[in-house]
């Protein structure tokens, strides 16, 4: 029993502390910060409209819709447009500081609080994309965000690390695999999304008879960005798109975890999201999902002749 526990803990330690590539973290940081700034800028002109009592939803209504467990800083601040715009301004500053890598973990924590606060203040304008942003912000807090490409670590390059050098890397302030354990939580989160949607789709009659994407193409408010709905008029096109989507979403929860299949899974995932991005107007959802797939990337190790 003791031996089994020891092996479980050893396996967990390998999973969390020894097998992630911390060099992808700055890519996550920069991509996330850019998108979070865009989010705030889009909300800015309608701050009073969405988030004050003189707008479309009163604070009391938001609380009734979400129940007693919800919280938001905006519940307690004065319900005035200038207050909301001030909060958005701080949010944008947090995003900008994260973008350049200035105490990014603190910025991530602040962004998480803002995201929860704004999403809970008006749940009617938010959707799954906002949930992904919120969870990612929370996970960012635990990543070594400023280890590379940040104003706090200027000149730091993405060089390979060997486990035997971990101690030395730490001593010079560099990042090692053990610091990037929260990447595993990103990976679990992404897997859960794909598995959940695949399981839900497997129950749907239109996903089983190959017509689901035809129906999606008739969602004319969202569909038809650069791919016309008429492209899916041919039954084989609709079936290909439907079964292709279903196959990729069923494959990703497994493929992303199998080292030999990981790159294939990441490429298929990116293709899926780009396909949706080109055909539908869903704001930043596809881009934040692509960002999440980057958490699975292991960059190739470069051989340095001078080491």
């Amino acid at each position, binding site marked *: 029993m003791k031996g089994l526990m020891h092996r479980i803990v050893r396996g967990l*330690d390998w999973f969390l502390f020894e097998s992630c590539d911390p060099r992808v973290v700055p890519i996550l940081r920069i991509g996330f910060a850019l998108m979070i700034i865009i989010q705030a800028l889009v909300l800015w002109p309608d701050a009073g409209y969405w988030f004050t009592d003189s707008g479309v939803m009163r604070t009391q209504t938001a609380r009734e819709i979400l129940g007693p467990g919800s919280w938001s800083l905006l519940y307690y601040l004065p319900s005035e447009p200038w207050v909301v715009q001030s909060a958005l301004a701080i949010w944008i500053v947090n995003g900008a500081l994260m973008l350049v890598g200035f105490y990014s973990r603190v910025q991530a924590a602040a962004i998480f609080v803002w995201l929860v606060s704004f999403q809970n203040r008006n749940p009617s304008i938010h959707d799954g994309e906002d949930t992904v942003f919120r969870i990612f912000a929370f996970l960012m807090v635990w990543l070594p965000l400023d280890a590379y490409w940040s104003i706090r670590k200027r000149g730091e390059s993405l060089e390979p690390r060997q486990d035997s050098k971990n101690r030395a890397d730490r001593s010079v302030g560099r990042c090692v695999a053990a610091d990037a354990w929260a990447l595993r939580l990103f990976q679990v989160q992404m897997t859960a999304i794909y598995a959940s949607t695949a399981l839900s789709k497997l129950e749907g009659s239109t996903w089983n008879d190959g017509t689901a994407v035809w129906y999606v193409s*008739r969602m004319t408010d969202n569909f038809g960005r650069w791919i016309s709905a008429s492209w899916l008029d041919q039954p084989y096109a609709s079936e290909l798109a439907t079964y292709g989507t279903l196959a990729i979403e069923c494959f990703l929860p497994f493929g992303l975890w199998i080292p030999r299949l990981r790159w294939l899974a990441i490429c298929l995932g990116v293709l899926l999201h780009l396909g949706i991005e080109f055909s539908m107007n869903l704001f930043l959802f596809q881009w934040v999902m692509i960002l999440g797939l980057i958490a699975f990337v292991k960059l190739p190790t470069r051989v340095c002749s001078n080491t």
Partner: protein
Amino acid sequence: MKKIAIRIASVLFCIGVLIDTTPESILWLWRTKAWVHPVLERLGLSQGDWPLFAPNPVLNNGVIVAELSDRNGNPATWTSTDWEKASAWTKFYRFRHMNYHQRLTNTHLAAVDFAEYLRLAVPDRESAVGSIRWSQDNQMLDPAPIEPPVREVKLYKYRNSIVLEEGQALPRLEQTIWSTQINFLARSDAQP
């Protein structure tokens, strides 16, 4: 000590996420989900399952329409953006508006607030178009300008759905027959 805390927190996070994202159709997990979700909500980490166009896509095309009457009883109509005709750029920077109009049917409380907002916002902050009126002898009269305050607002969703007969093959885009269903959402009256 730090390592132990990370181990425990990571395992708890993974278990919480996996339970919370399990589709609601998996009934045996229902009780556990009902317990886990509120805990995650308090932490700001709730998400629920991910039914992206599942189990079947739901057509949600259409516009929100508000029928108003002003202080003199003159009728007017407010209509939301017709998103089908909006440009890709408009759909991007006004995405929140599109999302809101599509989701307003889901929550009655939100619709009530929106009806109340329109009652107070027309004509200063929101523009509405005067409707044709009928005289007492049934003659058609030109629309009258709206005189605030607005007395009553009735909010509707004009939902466009596809007409499909049983056994019929899925029609081509230009042959698709659309029908409009009108769903009442909410009403707001001025206090006497």
